C-alpha cells in the first residue's frame, strides 16, 4: 500500500498536534498501514491540504478542503478513540 500523508492540525501546530501525530502513526503502523504525518496550525491547513491524503484535527478546520477531515480530540480525551482509529483506517484504505 502506498504511504499515506496525514496532516495533523491543532491551534499552533505544536502542542496537541504533536501528541496526535505520534499516536496516529503508532496506531496505523500497528494496523499495517504506512503513514507519515505533517503537523500544522489551523491557518496553514488550506495551503497544505492538497498534498495530504487525510486531515486529523483537534481544532476546527474548514470542511471545503477537498480531503476527509477527522476530529482528533479523542486522542486526548480517550472518548471514542477506537471509533476514530477505525475512521482513520477506513479513510486511508478507501
Amino acid at each position, binding site marked *: 500500500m502506498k504511504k499515506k500523508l496525514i496532516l495533523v492540525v491543532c491551534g499552533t501546530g505544536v502542542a496537541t498536534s504533536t*501528541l496526535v501525530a505520534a499516536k496516529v502513526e503508532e496506531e496505523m503502523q500497528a494496523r499495517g498501514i504506512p503513514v507519515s504525518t505533517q503537523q500544522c496550525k489551523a491557518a496553514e491547513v488550506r495551503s497544505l491540504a492538497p498534498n495530504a491524503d487525510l486531515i486529523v484535527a483537534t*481544532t476546527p478546520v474548514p470542511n471545503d478542503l477537498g480531503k476527509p477531515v477527522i476530529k482528533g*480530540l479523542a486522542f*486526548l*480525551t*480517550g*472518548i471514542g478513540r477506537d471509533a476514530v482509529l477505525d475512521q482513520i483506517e477506513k479513510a486511508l484504505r478507501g
Partner: protein
Amino acid sequence: MTMLADLIIPEALCPAIDAGSASAAIEFLSARLMALGKVRPSFAAAVIAREATMPTGLPLGDLNVAIPHTDPEHVLAPGVAVGTLRTPVQFCSMDDPDERLPVRIVFLLALTDKKLQLNLLQHVAEMIQQPQRLEQLIAATDAAAMHAALK
C-alpha cells in the same frame, strides 16, 4: 522521560478555587506560578488571550478539564499548576469553540520546549482518561491530597 509528577509544582496545587470565569481561574493559577518565579508577569494575559482564540476545554462527560497554556517566551521554568474549582467554570471546547463546557479541573501548563510539551501532554491525556483519578483530584481538600491524586 519527564513525567507529569516531575513537573507538578506542589506549591501550585490549589483545591476548591472560587473563580467566576475561565480568565479568573487562569489568573489565580498564573499568580501562584509567578509568585514562585516560574513565569513572567506577561504569562497570565498571554494564556487568557490564547484561550480566547484557541480554547483548551476537553469534553470528558462528567468532569471536564481545561489545559490552558501559552508560548515558551512567557515561561521561566517549566511546570504545571493544577487547580480544582469549587463550582464549574465555563471554558470552550478545543475542537468546537461554540461548545461551552463546565470545567472543574484546570491544568495550567508552563512549558519551555516542544519535546517536554509532548511528554507532558501524553501524561495529562493518560490521567484525564481515568475518571476515578479525576474524582480523587476533585475530592482533595488540600494540596497534599491533590499531589497524591496526581502521582
